[in-house]
C-alpha cells in the first residue's frame, strides 16, 4: 500500500497518533510517514493498484484474464460450453486439481517441489478405499506384512513429527493408526480420517528427507513418484481397481449436490462473513490510524464477489437434468469443501506466525534462521500440510472417478496441480504465492480439456499442447514480473 505522492499535504492524516511526540526530532520524523495511510479514496487506490501492476506484482490478474479469454473462446466455438450442466461439470473436474494445488502452494512457497503428490494421493485414497470395501479389515485387505509395514511407517512418522514438536500431526497420525486397527474405517468419515492421517504421515517422511537429511526435493519426490505407484499396485494386489461407488458419502462428494435452499444459505453466510470481516478490518485499521483501504473499494470488491458467486449459485441451482425425468440441481458438494479449505489455509498463511515464517523461509532461509525461526520445522510442517491436502485431493478424485485404478494420481495429475498453482501466480522460486492461486489456476487448467472436449473434430493431441502453452505463458509472466521487481 505504498502511496507514491510523497510530499503532498495530507489533511486529516493521523500522523500525530503514530509517534506520541516524545521529542521534536521524533515528531518531525513521524511526519515523514504522514502519508503512510494508504489510499484515501477509490481513485488513489486504483492508482496504487496500477502502480503495483507496473512494478511487476500482477497478483491474480493474468490468471483471471486467461480464464476470461478461454471462456470467451470456448463459448464462441461450442454452444454446449456455456450450458448449465457443463458449468457444474467444470467445477467438479477442477476440484481435485484445486485441492492438490492448494497443498502444493505450501511446498512451492518454500521454493521446493513435490512430484510425488499425485501418486501419494493414490496411496492415501487406496487405503481408504480398501477399508471401505473390505469391512474395515485392512489386515486382510493388505496382507499382514504390508499392513504391519504401513503401521510401522506411521509410527515412525509420528515419532518424527513429535521430534519437531508438530503435535497436531502426531495426533492425526496416531489417531489414524488406531482407527486402522479397528474396523470403524469401513465407514466414510473414519475412512476419510485414515486417508488424511496416511497423507500426513507421508508428508512427514518426505519433509524430513528434504529438510533434515537435505536431499533435494526434486530427487526425493521423483523417487517417491515412482515408489508410490508401486505401493499402490501392491495395495491393489491382483490389479483390479477399488470400487468406491457403493459408498454413498464418498461417491456423493463429486456426484451429488446440495439442495438449492442450502446452496443459497451457504452463499448468504459466506458473503455476510466476507463483508463483515473486510469492513471490520477497514474500520479497525482506520481507528488505529493505519493504512486502510477506502470503504468504497472494500464495498465494490464485496459487491463484485457477491454478484459473481450469486450468479454461479443461481445457475447451479437451475435444473440441469437432460431429460424431463431427471432433476439435477444445486451446488456440487465438493465446492463448499474447497471454499472452506481455501478460507482456512488463507487464514493460516496470512494471519498466523507460521504462515509468516513460511513466506520468510521461502524468501530467504538464512534470514529466517537468523531471526530465530526453526527452518527445518517450518519446512517439515509445510510438507505435512501438503500431505494432508494430497489425501483430501485423492478422496475427491476417487469420488469423481468412482474407483481407484492402478494408475490413480499418476500421469498428469500432479503436473496439472503444479500448473494450476503457477498459473494462479505462485512462484516456483519460492516466497510468493497465495492459496487462491490454486483455485483460480485450477479452473484455468480444468477449462481447457473441458472446452476442447465439447468441440467436434478436434484431435485430443491439442489438449496437452494448449495446456502446455498456457503453462509456459504463466511461467513467463512469473519470471518477467520477478525480473521487473528486482530491477527497480
Amino acid at each position, binding site marked *: 500500500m505504498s502511496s507514491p505522492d510523497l510530499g503532498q499535504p495530507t489533511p486529516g492524516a493521523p500522523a500525530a497518533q503514530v509517534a506520541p511526540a*516524545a521529542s521534536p526530532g*521524533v515528531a518531525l520524523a513521524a511526519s515523514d510517514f504522514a502519508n*503512510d495511510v494508504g489510499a484515501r479514496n477509490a481513485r488513489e487506490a486504483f492508482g496504487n493498484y496500477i502502480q503495483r501492476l507496473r512494478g511487476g506484482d500482477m497478483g491474480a490478474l493474468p490468471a483471471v484474464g486467461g480464464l476470461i479469454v478461454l471462456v470467451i473462446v470456448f463459448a464462441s466455438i461450442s454452444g454446449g460450453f456455456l450450458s448449465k450442466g457443463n458449468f457444474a461439470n467444470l467445477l467438479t473436474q477442477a476440484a481435485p486439481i484445486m485441492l492438490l494445488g492448494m497443498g502444493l502452494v505450501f511446498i512451492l512457497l518454500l521454493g521446493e517441489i513435490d512430484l510425488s503428490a499425485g501418486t501419494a494421493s493414490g496411496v492415501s485414497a487406496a487405503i481408504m478405499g480398501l477399508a471401505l470395501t473390505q469391512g474395515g479389515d485392512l489386515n486382510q485387505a493388505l496382507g499382514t506384512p504390508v499392513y504391519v509395514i504401513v503401521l510401522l511407517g506411521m509410527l515412525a512418522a509420528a515419532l518424527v513429527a513429535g521430534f519437531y514438536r508438530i503435535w497436531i500431526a502426531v495426533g492425526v497420525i496416531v489417531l489414524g493408526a488406531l482407527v486402522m486397527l479397528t474396523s470403524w474405517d469401513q465407514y466414510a468419515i473414519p475412512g476419510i480420517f485414515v486417508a488424511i492421517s496416511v497423507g500426513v504421515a507421508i508428508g512427514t517422511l518426505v519433509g524430513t528427507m528434504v529438510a533434515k537429511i537435505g536431499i533435494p526435493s526434486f530427487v526425493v519426490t521423483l523417487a517417491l513418484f515412482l515408489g508410490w505407484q508401486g505401493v499402490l499396485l501392491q495395495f491393489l494386489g491382483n490389479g483390479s481397481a477399488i470400487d468406491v461407488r457403493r459408498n454413498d458419502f464418498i461417491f456423493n462428494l463429486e456426484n451429488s449436490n446440495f439442495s438449492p435452499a442450502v446452496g443459497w444459505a451457504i452463499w448468504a453466510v459466506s458473503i455476510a462473513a466476507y463483508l463483515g470481516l473486510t469492513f471490520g478490518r477497514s474500520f479497525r485499521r482506520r481507528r488505529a490510524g493505519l493504512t486502510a483501504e477506502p470503504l468504497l473499494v472494500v464495498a465494490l470488491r464485496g459487491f463484485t464477489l457477491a454478484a459473481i458467486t450469486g450468479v454461479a449459485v443461481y445457475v447451479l441451482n437451475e435444473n440441469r437434468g437432460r431429460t424431463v425425468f431427471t432433476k439435477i440441481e444445486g451446488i456440487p458438494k465438493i465446492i463448499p469443501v474447497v471454499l472452506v479449505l481455501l478460507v482456512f489455509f488463507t487464514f493460516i498463511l496470512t494471519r498466523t506466525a507460521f504462515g*509468516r515464517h513460511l513466506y520468510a523461509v521461502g*524468501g530467504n532461509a538464512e534470514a529466517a534462521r537468523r531471526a*530465530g525461526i526453526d527452518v527445518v520445522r517450518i519446512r517439515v510442517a509445510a510438507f505435512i500440510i501438503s500431505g494432508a491436502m494430497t489425501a483430501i485431493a485423492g478422496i475427491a478424485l476417487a469420488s469423481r472417478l468412482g474407483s481407484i485404478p492402478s494408475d490413480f494420481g499418476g500421469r498428469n495429475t500432479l503436473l496439472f496441480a503444479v500448473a494450476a498453482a503457477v498459473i494462479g501466480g505462485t512462484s516456483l522460486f519460492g516466497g510468493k504465492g497465495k492459496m487462491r492461486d490454486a483455485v483460480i489456476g485450477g479452473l484455468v487448467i480444468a477449462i481447457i480439456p473441458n472446452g476442447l472436449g465439447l468441440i467436434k473434430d478436434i484431435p485430443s493431441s491439442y489438449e496437452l499442447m494448449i495446456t502446455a502453452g498456457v503453462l509456459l505463458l504463466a511461467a513467463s509472466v512469473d519470471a518477467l514480473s520477478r525480473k521487473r521487481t528486482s530491477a527497480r
Partner: protein
Amino acid sequence: MPDSPLLELRGVNKSFGPVHVLHDIDLKVYPGQVTALVGDNGAGKSTLVKCIAGIYPVDSGEFFFDGKPVSFSGPRDAAGLGIEIVYQDLALADNLDIVQNLFLGREIRKFGMLDEATMERKARETLASLAVRTVKSVRQSVSSLSGGQRQTVAIAKAVLWNSRVVFLDEPTAALGVAQTRQVLDLVRRLADNGLGVVLISHNMNDVKEVSDHVAALFLGRLAADVETKDVTTGQIVELITSGRSGSMGLSAAATNASM
C-alpha cells in the same frame, strides 16, 4: 572514560583445529560510544563477532555484561542480553515488507493471530525514532528498497528490541556516497541514544568520522585499543597492516610470532 564498559571481553582465545584465530583478545564496549573494530581480511573480526553471537564456542576467555560474567552458547543468549548483530549480508527477506521483516521471528500476537496493527505502529515509531526519512511506507516490500534503506531496516530490526549493544558488520560496504552518509548518521544516532555500538569497517574515513575508539586486530591479536582522536588515519592503517605504529601496537616479538 565516562562509564564502565557495557560489554567486556577478557583473554578470549579461539582455535579452529591447529589454526589459532584469536589470541587473548580484550575488548571493551562503552554505552553511548562507537567502537570501531578494524583489521585486515583474516585478522579475526568476523570470528570475534561470531563468538559473541554464540555461533562459535570460545576456547578460553571471559565475557562481562554490565560487569557481570556471562557466557554465549547460542544465538539466543546474546539476544537475551540485548546484544544484536547486523551482518554484512543483510538478513532480510526480500519478499516480505518492512514491518514483516522488522518483527520476523518475534511477531506480536493477539489471540494466536498476528497483531498487524501493533506491529505496524511500533515499526513506524522505531523508524521515526531513528529519524529515517527515506522510506515511503512501512508496508513497502524490502525488494523495492535501495541498499541504504535496506541497511537502515536491518539496523532498525536490531534496535527494535531495546537492545543495548549493536554490532554492525561493514554497514557501508556496498553503499553509495549519499547512502553511506545516511547510515553513518544512523550509527552516530544509535550511540547518542545510549547504545554501545561496534562498527566493523574497512573504510578509514568512516572510522575516523563516526567512532570514538578504534580497536585494531592484527592476525588474531588486539594490536591496539585507542581513542580515535589520538590517532591519524595513517597510524590506523599501520596498525592494521603491520600490527604496530610507532610506540603503539604489538611488540616486534608478537608480530613475528604470529607471522
